[in-house]
């Protein structure tokens, strides 16, 4: 059996590496995608174009505006003089945020009445809009607190020194500078592996069927099980190689720290790739042409990535969707990836994920082997 398997493996490797284009397909797209993703995927906001309309012209309003403009988040590009300018500027997309302080702002503050600050944001990019509004809320909060403190000091300086106070000491763990890249890069490793291994496996088998060489192989003494092993083993190895390659880019090019154990990451990768081999084989059993295989793979890939927590936290999805996410192997691999990269946790934390991937992988492979036998008959 081993001899036959060896022959099959040799054939498979020759086939994969013979063609220049196929060689490129194995390593080119993952690297290019990793680079683009690493740079493009960010939810951080910096230098948001902002215009200001200050109709109060007070010390207080100027103070608030300068607090906003001194952050890296907002670039005040223009001071407006008329409220009617705002719609035009936002419509044209010349600014994303307009900060408007009406006359009477300082007066209201002094009297202890609610002093409103108007913020107008362009909601066509709701992410930027949400974060910008959040930051402005924070800036206004600090401003109000400082203002109140000043007043207390003026009125009752003897008390202020002995006044109670609650402070929040924040410690952002794992990613202290809150870099989006640190969040996305480990995720990209997972999703690229998913795309690569699934499509390659599905294509490899379907191609043989489409060309008719599958029948030729089946008349040889090679057993179906050996055939499956011979088909999947190369992609298993290529998958592992690609994981190592893009993980290296993540660490040395994008400088995402790796704090965990390489052995844990690889255990996760092995289990995950097994799942993907199972999916690829399953797709190949239900497709007779490469085009069908590709499109079916696409149907699997899109939901699997969307529901994995790759870009959006699972906890924000509707509850019924949250249950669906348990079926995506990528969901578990992402926890392992982020756990290994950023959190530096080991098996004692990640074993549920490993177990889930192991179970899913086993089920998928069993299903595909059974179906494959049937498809041959």
């Amino acid at each position: 059996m081993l001899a036959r398997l060896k022959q099959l493996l040799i054939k498979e490797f020759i086939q994969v590496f013979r063609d220049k284009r196929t060689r490129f397909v194995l390593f080119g797209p993952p690297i290019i995608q990793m680079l683009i993703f690493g740079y493009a995927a960010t939810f951080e906001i910096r230098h948001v174009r902002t215009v200001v309309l200050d109709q109060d012209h007070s010390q207080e309003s100027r103070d608030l505006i300068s607090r906003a403009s001194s952050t890296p988040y907002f670039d005040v590009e223009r001071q407006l003089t008329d409220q009617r300018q705002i719609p035009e500027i936002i419509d044209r997309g010349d600014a994303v945020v307009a900060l408007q302080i009406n006359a009477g702002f300082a007066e209201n503050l002094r009297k202890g009445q609610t002093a409103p600050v108007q913020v107008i944001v362009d909601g066509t990019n709701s992410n930027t809009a949400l974060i910008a509004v959040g930051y402005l809320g924070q800036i206004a909060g600090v401003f109000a607190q400082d203002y109140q403190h000043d007043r207390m000091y003026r009125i009752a300086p003897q008390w202020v020194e002995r006044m109670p106070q609650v402070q929040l000491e924040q410690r952002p763990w794992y990613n202290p500078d809150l870099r989006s890249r640190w969040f996305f890069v480990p995720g990209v490793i997972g999703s690229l592996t998913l795309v690569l291994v699934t499509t390659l496996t599905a294509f490899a088998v379907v191609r043989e069927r489409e060309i008719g060489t599958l029948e030729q192989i089946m008349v040889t003494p090679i057993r179906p099980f050996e055939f499956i092993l011979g088909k999947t083993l190369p992609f298993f190895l290529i998958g592992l190689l690609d994981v190592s390659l893009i993980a290296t880019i993540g660490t040395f090019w994008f400088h995402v720290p790796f704090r965990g154990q390489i052995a844990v990451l690889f255990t996760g990768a092995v289990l995950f790739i097994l799942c993907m081999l199972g999916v690829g084989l399953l797709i190949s059993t239900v497709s007779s042409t490469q085009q069908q295989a590709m499109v079916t793979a696409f149907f699997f890939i899109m939901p699997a990535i969307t529901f994995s927590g790759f870009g959006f936290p699972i906890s924000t999805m509707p509850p019924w969707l949250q249950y669906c996410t348990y079926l995506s192997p990528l969901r578990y691999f992402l926890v392992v990836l982020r756990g290994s990269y950023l959190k530096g946790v080991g098996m004692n934390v990640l074993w549920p994920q490993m177990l889930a991937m192991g179970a899913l992988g086993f089920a998928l492979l069993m299903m595909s082997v059974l179906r494959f036998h049937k498809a041959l008959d």
Partner: protein
Amino acid sequence: MRLTRLGAVAMKELTQIRRDVRSLIIVVVMPVILVLLFGYGVSLDLKHLPVYVYDRDGSQQSQDLLKRFRASDYFKIAGMVNNDPELVRAIDAGNAKMGLVIPWDFSQRLRDGRTAQVQALIDASDDNTANVLIGYSQSVVQGYSSDVQLDWLHHRGQAIQPAPLRVEARTWYNEDLESSAFIIPGVLALVMSVIGAFLTSLTIAREWERGSMEQLISTPVTPLEIMLGKLIPYFVIGMFDVSLCAGLALYWFHVPFRGQFSTLLLSSALFMIVVLSLGFLISVIAKNQLAASQIALLATFLPAFLLSGFLYAIEQMPGVLQVITRAIPARYYVSVLKKIFLKGTPTSLLYADLVPLTIFALILAAIATRAFHKRLA
């Protein structure tokens, strides 16, 4: 060019699509699935984030503070723990996004008029979530602290006005900051990329692979007729899918549509020409289906997903990447889509997007035609 021959090629292509039931299903179902996926699965609005609390004080005051966290939409107290290791474990395992530690002398310090520090340990591996947590926990604690101070001064006969400052945010074009309203228009670009480039490049690459293209060429049909005949059915399908997606967006997700429908059709037709030309070009360059599918992924789907402003704001990307996005046709299409869906920008103000889109369509169609001729020669 003869219309009868053109018609014959188009009919042949249509028959081929119709005969392949799965392709047909895909063409109708895939847009629906993509719209549903992104409509439900993608939410930028982070609420009810799980928080674990370690209340070492257990006093009335610490309960008051926690009550304020409970009252906020952004937090959900998911667990109370009694020691540090448990808290760390909850964060490591991802069960808690934030751990709040209230010191044992919290109420004592407040009574003595000293500063009490509350600790927030935040899982910052997801920077976006961390940002929300940092901002809103800060504002909760600030609000509490300021009330404690006013109360304290009041007891000592010093009535001081609070400084209530309110940020009134108005979000234009997408008033409720619905993620679906911002995401779904862009999904149209994804669907078209898949239909246009993926399906076409695979179909035509198959003809090359099988040699049926040579048969077709040996007939009196001219190359231009072949090309148009093959692409027209996909063009029709693409336009059908655009209408389908737009219908879903409007009637299922209630995304506003404020522009002109004719503009939607015009820009979609232009973009369809772009992706079809790309798909055709790819099939001419790549000799097999595997390479064609991977190149199509890299050249159309990925840019439409990452570099078009569909999900990630272009202005937040590094400068070099921003320049590159100018060469991505999907960028202009997504921009038009957002403007006609959400902003209702009149067609006359869309030249900045429509003109580049037209130029891309013309150039790519010309390149594809040339490459096809050359390949035949």
